[in-house]
């Protein structure tokens, strides 16, 4: 602990620790750039369509396979649909898949991890379950899941939402295990920390204990898993598209757009470039954000 920190904040008003995290985060140039870019992408993708209001499904056959023009800054595809609009629509799906799949994986991972770490009795069984999932060959499982549930889900939620739910769930339930392991490890260590013992000596009930003492303190590994999870989910979705098991062909996602465009790589290089860049840069920015967050959430680095 640098003594400086004591006095520097002597008169500061109650200061949420997230401000400190933010202060540290700000010093990581890559992370800040990553965050800016990520926000930019999210805005572009969600707010963009309000400004660039061409319908991504509108077909203008006369204008097909065009390069960038003022009318179509990103060019058009083989049906003359505007690539910029499709990139935005695709981004919405890809980013939502990334975020929700990651959210699901984190939820499951944290739940299992915390329960296993906290309650000794179910630790064994939950960790066996985790091992089991780790030992399951995931890609085949993913493929089988998609095969199994694609129809029922599209039937009940419509093809897009159905597949969305399916892919999110598929990615989510096949990627929670590392988080669970890390969280469990942390919870086990936390349980030995004196403040948990202190809470126990006060008589804090298990539920409160988890919410108040355990969860907030495993936030940092969770946040880091989160950023990596977004990236992996986006990539997994695109791989599924490649194998023909992702979203239907008429439903743009970045992975799908990239895959569709690889055939045209020589003729219309811009068509691979946009989705390729979007995926890579998003993943990159998210990774940098993760790096920055890891540093910012680490009290040792934050200099507490």
């Amino acid at each position, binding site marked *: 602990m*640098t*003594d*400086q920190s*004591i*006095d520097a904040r002597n008169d500061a008003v109650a200061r949420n620790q997230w401000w400190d995290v933010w*202060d*540290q985060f700000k*010093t990581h140039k890559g992370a800040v750039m990553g965050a800016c870019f990520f926000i930019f992408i999210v805005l572009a993708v969600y707010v963009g369509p309000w400004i660039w209001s061409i319908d991504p499904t509108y077909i203008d056959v006369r204008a097909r396979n065009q390069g960038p023009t003022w009318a179509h800054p990103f060019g058009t595809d083989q049906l003359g649909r505007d690539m910029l609009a499709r990139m935005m629509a695709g981004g919405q799906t890809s980013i939502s898949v990334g975020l929700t799949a990651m959210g699901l994986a984190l939820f499951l991972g944290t739940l299992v991890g915390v329960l296993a770490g906290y309650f000794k009795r179910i630790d064994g069984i939950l960790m066996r379950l985790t091992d089991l999932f780790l030992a399951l060959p995931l890609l085949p499982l993913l493929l089988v899941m998609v095969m199994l549930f694609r129809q029922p889900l599209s039937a009940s939620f419509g093809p897009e939402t159905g597949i969305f739910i399916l892919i999110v769930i598929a990615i989510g339930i096949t990627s929670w295990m590392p988080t669970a392991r890390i969280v469990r490890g942390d919870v086990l260590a936390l349980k030995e920390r004196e403040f948990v013992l202190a809470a126990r000596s006060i008589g804090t009930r298990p539920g409160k204990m988890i919410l108040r003492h355990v969860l907030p303190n495993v936030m940092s590994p969770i946040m880091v898993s989160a950023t990596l999870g977004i990236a992996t989910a986006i990539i997994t979705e695109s791989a599924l598209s490649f194998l023909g098991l992702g979203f239907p062909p008429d439903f743009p996602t970045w992975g799908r757009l990239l895959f569709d465009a690889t055939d045209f790589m020589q003729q219309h290089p811009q068509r691979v470039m946009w989705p390729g860049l979007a995926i890579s840069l998003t993943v990159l920015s998210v990774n940098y954000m993760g790096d920055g967050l890891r540093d910012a959430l680490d009290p040792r680095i934050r*200099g507490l």
Partner: protein
Amino acid sequence: MPDGAQPVLDVRGLKTVFKIRGGEVHAVNDVSFDLKPGELLGVVGESGSGKSVTMMSLLGLLPSPPADVRGGTVTFDGQDLLKVDAETLRKTRGGKIGFVFQDPMTSLNPVYNVGMQIMEPLRKHMGMTKKQAAVRAKELLELVGIPDADQRLKDYPHQFSGGMRQRVMIAIALACDPKVLVADEPTTALDVTIQAQILELMKELQERLGMAVIWITHDLGVVAGIADRVVVMYGGQIVEQAPTRELFKNPQHPYTRALLKTVPRVSGGREERLEIIEGQPPILGASPTACPFRDRCDVAMDRCAHENPQRYDVGNNHDAACFYDARTGAPRDV
């Protein structure tokens, strides 16, 4: 203690700064001291007073960045260690100056057996063959009082207890017959009974090998027991320096005095209430322009707030950095 002898190590005006987010930590400010051959110099001071940083600056062991040794000279063997080339510095480290660190649990490499770790400097600095080094390593382990040395050379650090690991660390530091041994709180992590063993061992070894030792600690009791001379650090500076007995008999700096009073004893009269030093240690945010102890000092005066006292000689090889003269009970006239 051979008084006027040529010092083996002479540190003048050492200054070390850490660059941290949004500023600097001036951890060591203008520190000067010397070490005579065969002498055991105790360094005391509270946590964060710059003891470790001072010693690590001598041998360039601080990670840089963030550390930056800004100035001063460290004369050893006729050379300024702050200026010599990397190779000479490496030869000095381990070869001529041994180092023992505070935490015996983490200071040994867990994946190599201790034999290898002791032999490493032997082969590097003394050019020994593997066989010779092994023989010497065994001698060293025996020297620091580890029984069954032959066998234990093959053991890994985790198979040793804390006290034994610290002995291994000492063995490593002594491996190349260094002229100077720097021990940075080698017993702080240990129990009193083990600490007593190590202190005993150190005293014996020092007498036997005749090397100069710098012993960092924040336990005044330890210093009283083994040091010839004591340096007291506070806020990145040396505030007092004196031969041991002189210091305990006749503490000059108000910090030293307060420190001696706060410590309860196992023997002698029991105080009804402990003395305390009010306030907090200083922030080392900038190069000091005032006395670092002024806020907690009971004899502080106006002057202390805008002038940093020099170390004034008070005779008996004793100096203290205070404007107040404890002997006369009046401000120093400088």
